């Protein structure tokens, strides 16, 4: 994770961001701290912190830094120049931490775990708004796994992790209308029990949840109905208010990058 010391809305690169709707710095820090505490204390995760840096306000959204596989980081190539400034910082941090860095060809964009989520042994890869389709083949060869590219269809859900959230080996949360009909068929084929969320839940970033075993850490805006559905399937929801980060188009999942596979 990365502390939101320098977090702010400094530009508009997705439909959520508006320079007129600034994030409240103190509130953002408090919300982030609360998320950190839930993960570190309640769920007993070991968290590594990427040092914050001025001029890169979105560095807090570490999920987009890259994709970690073992001791390798497949580094992101951000689409927007505003976020490309994060690349060297991420690379330096991981190199120091002893990771091997894989850089993708510069002509392709790739925004890390934001667009690449494991479902069992298959990596589901979202493309169009932030990542390019041809990257899927490179990921497949680096990871030696099946990588299924699905096209995203709604600008508000510009990253795969805003509309798709694997829960366990059989189920996942998703917002079907964020995909085109091919993408929907692929997900329905791959995920035996997909749980479709309503538009209201999707807009509250219900799919942008951190899943650890049976624990689901998500923004507090989840509807009671969805909480009940998750509870019925044996999941415990840890709601955290992340409204300040929603202003930048991110929530719980966007604020963390997974360094080791789920237990």
């Amino acid at each position: 994770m990365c502390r939101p010391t320098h977090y702010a809305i400094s530009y508009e690169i997705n439909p959520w961001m508006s320079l007129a709707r600034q994030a409240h710095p103190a509130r953002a820090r408090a919300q982030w701290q609360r998320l950190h505490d839930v993960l570190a204390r309640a769920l007993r995760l070991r968290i590594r912190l990427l040092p914050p840096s001025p001029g890169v306000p979105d560095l807090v959204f570490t999920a987009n830094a890259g994709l970690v596989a073992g001791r390798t980081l497949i580094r992101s190539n951000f689409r927007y120049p505003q976020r490309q400034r994060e690349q060297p910082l991420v690379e330096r941090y991981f190199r120091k931490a002893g990771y091997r860095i894989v850089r993708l060809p510069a002509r392709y964009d790739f925004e890390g775990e934001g667009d690449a989520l494991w479902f069992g042994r298959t990596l589901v890869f979202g493309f169009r708004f932030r990542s390019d389709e041809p990257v899927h083949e490179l990921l497949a060869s680096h990871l030696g796994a099946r990588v299924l590219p699905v096209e995203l269809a709604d600008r508000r859900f510009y990253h795969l992790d805003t509309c798709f959230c694997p829960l366990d080996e059989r189920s996942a949360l998703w917002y079907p209308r964020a995909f085109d009909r091919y993408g929907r068929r692929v997900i329905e084929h791959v995920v035996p029990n997909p749980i479709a969320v309503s538009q209201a839940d999707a807009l509250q970033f219900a799919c942008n949840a951190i899943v650890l075993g049976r624990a689901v850490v998500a923004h507090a805006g989840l509807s009671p109905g969805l909480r009940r559905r998750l509870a019925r399937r044996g999941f415990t929801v840890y709601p955290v208010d992340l409204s300040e980060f929603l202003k930048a188009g991110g929530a719980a999942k966007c604020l963390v990058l997974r360094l080791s596979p789920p237990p």
Partner: protein
Amino acid sequence: MTSEVIRVSGHIIDSLILPKILDEIMDLNGTFEILHIAIGTRKTDPSQARLRVSAASARHLEQILQRLSRLGAVREAAQDARLRRAPRDGVFPADFYSTTNLPTDVRVRGRWRTVERIEMDCGIVVAASGRARCTPFADVRKGDRVVCGADGVRVSPLERGRSPQVFQFMGSAVSSEKPKLQLIYRLAEEMRAVRRARRKILVVAGPAVIHTAGGPYLERLIRAGFVNVLFAGNGLATHDIESALFGTSLGVRLDHGVAAQDGHDHHMRAINAIRACGGIRQAVRRRVLRRGIMHACVVRRVPFVLGGSVRDDGPLPDVVTDTLEAQTLMRRRLHGVALALMVGSTLHAIATGNLLPATVRTVCVDINPAVVTKLADRGTFQGIGIVSDAEAFLRELCRALRV
């Protein structure tokens, strides 16, 4: 119809990327042909497909390919055309690309360039600026960069228009057993359309036009502005002038159809008269020549090229006896030509057919079906043959054009 080959690879089957690409092509009104497909045997194996995507126009194809590139389709590593230096003046490198008369593009430094002044049986010279030009043997200079091999060369076949076009009546097999009047009326419409579009009409005429007493009709066409360029040989010009000066063609009186006394030397005297003046233009200026096709050309400022041949009598001073020079002059005059009308001429019609791009519509009129067929067989597309007497054809054409 233009096409390009694309390649898609990766996990394109399970992710429905391939079916999606095929659907997209069809949704965008393109067509495809799967050239090759290799499907991975295990889930983690990538699959590959090569497709040829075709669309009605280059712009349309570009739209489709842009959409497909978002789906990860890459254009097959289109190679640049291979360029080699011409070893000597008038000599192409051994493996030079020999052109067709169809619209052709070559890829130079990653960019497709349309070959200018395309014509069959030439080479393609690429200038330092990247401009590609169709170049005949005679014009190639030592050190010119010439396209070699077929890599990076794209030839677009002519498409048949989807909507019924004026020229759609053309392009059927040559036959003497066809109603000519209909064809002539539609040709007249086409000629009007060409004139409205400010493009040029080229007429290639042989001496048969004069022998059959069709000269006055061609003269009328010229005076009415339906002829913008005239190609002919010494024969047409000589007999036209003979008829203007003596009323005969090869000694036969055109008004009575009988041989004039001592008429056999009329054409020689006609040539002599023009040689004495220094040329056709001078003869017109000195009012020696006062009527006829050549007179009309000079008066109406219609450029003409008279190409010489070995059997010419005289020839007239205006005849270009150097065949390469004649070719060059003809080429220069072809710019802007949209319709070529070839009447009663075998050699000049074929010579001109060789110089024309396939996009120029061609009408070949001859009494001998073999000539008409021969032109078509040599690859002059978009053409029609009319088997007819030259005079009868021109008379009806004048009537159809009301001149």
